[in-house]
């Protein structure tokens, strides 16, 4: 009986007061399609393949990303371009298999592959999730265009010659 009285006289009014206070609090619901969530700066979304400032792709098809990938979702085949550089002929990321761990980004010695902030790439067909090299480069172009609109044209990435020592066979820039 005493237990019952403390419930009625003390506990229930405290509970009611708590819920009443919460009525006036700001809802924490995010009305998603209208309001986008605040992503963490380290958010890992859809991949992109970066380019140098002259528009050439950074990837040299070394295969380290594919080796680092725990989900085995990266496939690539190399070729040699007219300047004798090793580039990717085929570079495929299967976004269905990908677990967005970011190991490819860490493994990449050329700073070519990154995980972007795009997360709204749901599609109706599974084959549409096989991202080819062109699609991944397009992702980069889109991001770069947005960045230039926002921040103006400025170089944030080093050009390729900051990375390697120039050698006579390196291509037109050395001539």
């Amino acid at each position, binding site marked *: 009986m005493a237990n*019952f009285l403390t419930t009625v006289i003390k506990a*229930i009014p405290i*509970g*009611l007061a*708590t*819920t*009443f206070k*919460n*009525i*006036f*609090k*700001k*809802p*924490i*619901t995010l*009305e998603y399609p209208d309001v986008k969530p605040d992503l963490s700066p380290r958010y890992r979304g859809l991949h992109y393949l970066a380019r140098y400032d002259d528009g050439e792709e950074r990837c040299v098809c070394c295969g380290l990303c594919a080796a680092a990938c725990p989900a085995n979702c990266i496939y690539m085949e190399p070729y040699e371009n007219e300047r004798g550089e090793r580039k990717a002929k085929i570079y495929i990321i299967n976004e269905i298999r990908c677990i967005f761990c970011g190991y490819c980004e860490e493994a990449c010695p050329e700073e070519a592959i990154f995980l972007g902030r795009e997360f709204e790439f749901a599609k109706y067909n599974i084959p549409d999730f096989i991202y080819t090299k062109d699609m991944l480069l397009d992702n980069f172009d889109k991001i770069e265009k947005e960045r230039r609109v926002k921040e103006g044209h400025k170089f944030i990435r080093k050009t390729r010659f900051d990375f390697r020592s120039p050698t006579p066979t390196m291509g037109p820039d050395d001539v």
Partner: protein
Amino acid sequence: MDTLDIILTIVKVLVIFGGLMLMVAYMTLFERRVVAWIQNRIGPNRVGPNGILQPIADAIKLLTKEDVLPAGANKIIFSLAPTITFIPALLTIAVVPVSSSLTLFGRNITMVISDMNIGILYILAVSSIGVYGIILGGWASNSKYPLLGGIRSTAQMISYEVSMGLALVGLLMIAGTFSMTEIVNQQSSIIKWFVFRQPLGFILFAICALAETNRIPFDLPEAESELVGGYNTEYSSMKFAMFFMAEYAHIIAVSAIITTLYFGGWQGPILPPIIWFLIKVGFFLFAFVWIRGTLPRFRYDQLMRFGWLILLPLALLNILLTGIFMVL
């Protein structure tokens, strides 16, 4: 009773019925919004500005749903049960005076459909019919969970109706009348409200009213976490909607009754009586939702113990105390 009286009654019935149905529709939205606010959510706000067309969208959805009849169900009783629950909920409002009487064309028009001299008895009688719908619906579904829900509802209603009736006795002893209109007239100022003359009786009545309407914390008949959906598990489409309309109509009716019996009905200064009535009813509707957003469900044994060992003795004590005070 001449023709004009009959027309007048029909008009009153239509207006009150229409108003009640509108309130039932918007009570669903109100409850969802308020519970959402309590839980720091937003609630339905997509259909129309601020979600005000949500009840219409819900109605269209429910009307176009498939009407499932479970195998082995008793078809007639299964179809009849929602109606049996719904109609008594609407009937109770008939004796509640919503406003002061009006003199129009030399005629005294009372703002109540039927000013019975046994209004409170009528409410108690009619509201107990509503239980049959739940029990029959649960039984006719030919399914375990609805049956358990129906049985629980039976036990709960029997336990709490006793205390509800007895809680009202104290009020009736002071008021000396069963007529709702007369009871409102006796509460002409705020000090004369029966809630101050019958505080214990009011608390008991409010608790029993919660139990009678199957609301949290007394929603054992439909206990989602234990009985799937309780008595309405097998129901779908408009029959399901009917059970819920009955529940909301019950809440509104009970709020109106509490307002009338304990909070002076339409009495109040400055504002027109109907506004006062709606404000008071609105407060109790809010309180119902508020309690829903706060309290967990009773355990079955707690429910029974609370009903028989606490509410009933307190109701009897209330009668005793009222009697003593009246004699003094």
